[in-house]
């Protein structure tokens, strides 16, 4: 009896021991119940809008290999800053660039420019011709063609210099031409190249005038060459994702789109450096100004115009061809808008009173009555208050760039509208909160890059410097050049082909003409004229 009592006491003690040992387990149980509830709520929130898209979150694969990979011989007309970037996309950087980029990478481990360049796909081509009206730049182009610091190693052929573009585009040693001259030369070079049967990659803005746009369009159609306009945003995976969201109508009816440009530095306002080696002997000024309406003799003013050409309507169209063209093409890529019926614009030279004749604050309105849509573009070169681009729907708004980035490059967010019809029930139930994004796209969010200058940051936020493929950083210019070469080889249409180029060219010129003429411009698609 006594023994039994002792035994049950020991049991009791033991049980108490065990209970004290396991006392906090119920808290863990509660933790997992709460965790499960939270995960279920998170999932519900996501599934309400874009579940299909989220499951389709993977980036498109970077390399679609083309079977017929003939070696292509490329010539470049205009080897300035942009020409240099484009040929880097082709796989040819100057020795100066590769050594300074690798130095930068050593000093700043976050500077990935060199690594990105060296890991580019070898495009199986050579840079065989360079034409530039400034000797210094032309020589740099030749050097780049010989530089063996590149992903493919030594190139099959190297470049020779052509004094005049007509010699380059008609040369039998050249298959395809990259045009990165100032805008007033685009159509002449492109038309001559197309007539000589060369494929053309032309920088934006497409042309300097409306008439040139139509002429270039017709020539490309007649000759059947492969034409790519230089809007590398076409390669940005975020915009393809955005397109899916728009196509599914998840924003509801969209009546207003707001596009913006914000810059606030001399470099961003085209006050570029004047090369000390630039003089009447090294620059062919007469050829440079030949297509422009107003001519001046060579001198200090001419040097300024040569190196800062975007500031004058003689050589380009200012904000319209340089930056509005990018934003318009981005929205045209996402929404497939085409050419508007009406365009009007206004602005002025309010900050950079440095002798330029293009406005530094400029706003344009595009009307699409058949789509019930207005597109508003607003640009300033004297404030960095980054507003981003917004596609404003009745049910939700998509914000691209600007504040939506939160550190990621070329990302976007979608927020439901508090008065949305489509999401009314879910907003009332509290499943959707219009304060927080219902979808956010941050490509390469696990990747960090050290992009330093304000202008670089501006371009990066617009997806114009880098994009991501499978989470890896790739230069979008490289992808865009590659897309062009792939299309030449496979005889298919590149992503920013002549039809897209026509939309960009005509729309930009409608807006430019409105500013210059001080009235609303209408597009007559039948007669292909501006009224």
């Amino acid at each position, binding site marked *: 009896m006594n023994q039994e009592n002792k035994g049950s006491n020991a049991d009791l003690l033991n049980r108490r021991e065990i209970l*004290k*040992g*396991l006392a*906090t387990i119920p*808290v*863990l149980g509660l933790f997992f119940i709460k965790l499960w509830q939270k995960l279920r709520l998170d999932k519900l929130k996501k599934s309400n809008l874009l579940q299909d898209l989220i499951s389709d979150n993977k980036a498109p694969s970077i390399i679609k290999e083309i079977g017929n990979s003939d070696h292509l011989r490329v010539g470049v007309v205009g080897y300035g800053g942009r020409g240099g970037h484009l040929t880097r996309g082709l796989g040819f950087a100057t020795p100066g660039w590769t050594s300074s980029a690798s130095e930068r990478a050593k000093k700043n*481990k976050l500077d990935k420019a060199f690594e990105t360049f060296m890991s580019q796909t070898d495009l199986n081509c050579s840079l065989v011709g360079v034409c530039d009206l400034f000797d210094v730049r032309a020589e740099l182009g030749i050097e780049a063609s010989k530089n063996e610091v590149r992903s493919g190693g030594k190139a099959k052929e190297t470049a020779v210099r052509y004094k005049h573009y007509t010699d380059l585009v008609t040369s039998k040693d050249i298959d395809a031409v990259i045009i990165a001259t100032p805008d007033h030369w685009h159509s002449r070079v492109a038309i001559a190249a197309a007539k000589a049967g060369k494929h053309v990659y032309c920088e934006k803005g497409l042309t300097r005038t409306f008439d040139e746009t139509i002429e270039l369009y017709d020539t490309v159609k007649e000759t059947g060459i492969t034409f790519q306009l230089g809007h590398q945003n076409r390669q940005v995976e975020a915009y393809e994702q955005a397109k899916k969201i728009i196509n599914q109508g998840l924003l509801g009816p969209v009546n207003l789109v707001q596009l913006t440009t914000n810059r606030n530095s001399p470099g961003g306002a085209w006050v570029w450096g004047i090369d000390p080696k630039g003089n009447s002997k090294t620059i062919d000024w007469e050829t440079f100004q030949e297509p422009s309406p107003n001519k001046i003799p060579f001198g200090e003013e001419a040097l300024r115009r040569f190196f800062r050409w975007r500031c004058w309507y003689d050589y380009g169209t200012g904000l319209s061809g340089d930056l509005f063209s990018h934003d318009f093409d981005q929205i045209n890529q996402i929404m497939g808008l085409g050419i508007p019926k009406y365009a009007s614009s206004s602005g002025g030279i309010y900050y950079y009173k440095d002798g330029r004749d293009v406005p530094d604050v400029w706003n344009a309105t595009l009307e699409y009555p058949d789509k019930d849509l207005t597109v508003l573009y607003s640009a300033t070169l004297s404030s960095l208050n980054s507003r981003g681009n917004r596609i404003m729907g009745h049910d939700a708004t998509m914000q691209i760039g600007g504040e939506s980035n939160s550190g990621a490059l070329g990302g976007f967010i979608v927020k439901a509208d508090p008065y949305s019809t489509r999401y009314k029930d879910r907003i009332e139930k509290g499943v959707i909160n219009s304060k927080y994004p219902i979808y956010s796209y941050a490509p390469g969010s696990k990747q*960090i890059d050290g992009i330093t200058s304000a202008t670089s940051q501006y371009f990066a936020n617009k997806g114009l410097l880098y994009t991501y493929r499978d989470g890896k950083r790739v230069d979008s210019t490289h992808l865009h050049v590659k897309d062009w070469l792939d299309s030449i080889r496979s005889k298919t249409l590149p992503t920013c082909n002549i039809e897209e180029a026509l939309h960009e060219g005509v729309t930009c010129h409608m807006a430019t003409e409105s500013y210059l003429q001080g009235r609303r411009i209408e597009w007559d698609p039948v007669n292909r004229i501006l009224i």
Partner: protein
Amino acid sequence: MKIDLMKNDTYSESQLTGLVILRILIGWHFLYEGISKIINPYWSSAAYLLDSKWVLSSLAKSIVANSTILGFTDFINMWGLTLVGLSLLLGIFSRYGALFGMGFVLLYYLFAPPFIGLEYSRPGEGSYMLVNKNLIEAFALYVLYLFPSSQFIGLDRLILSSELNSLGDK
């Protein structure tokens, strides 16, 4: 004699209750911080590290620059926080848990201390001057290390008693 180790004559009932509650709360916090990182495929310590200021900022930047080391750091954070959380919550090896946990939050503090003149791009969730919640949590964990409670309430109690039993059997 050894049985006395587990006899609670160190703390009063309410002292022990207070210590166990503090341990459970901090454990819960660590466990959720860890698990939320594990289940978020986009989580990375990179953004936090890049915003690092003061003496550890260059170390932070070299971690981010090397994707292998960054991946390792992410792994240690995700699973380290989870294990510390479980250790404190369940009361298993809790003294070590408290010590490791203190190490984690002290590092978070040192990578981004709220010193006067240091500006961070990520918004803080409170107002801090020198002292922030990381520092407080670190020293709360130090208290838990100095005043262990898992041998009274927690799995450590069972481990200890089975060890003692096997000693007794011998």
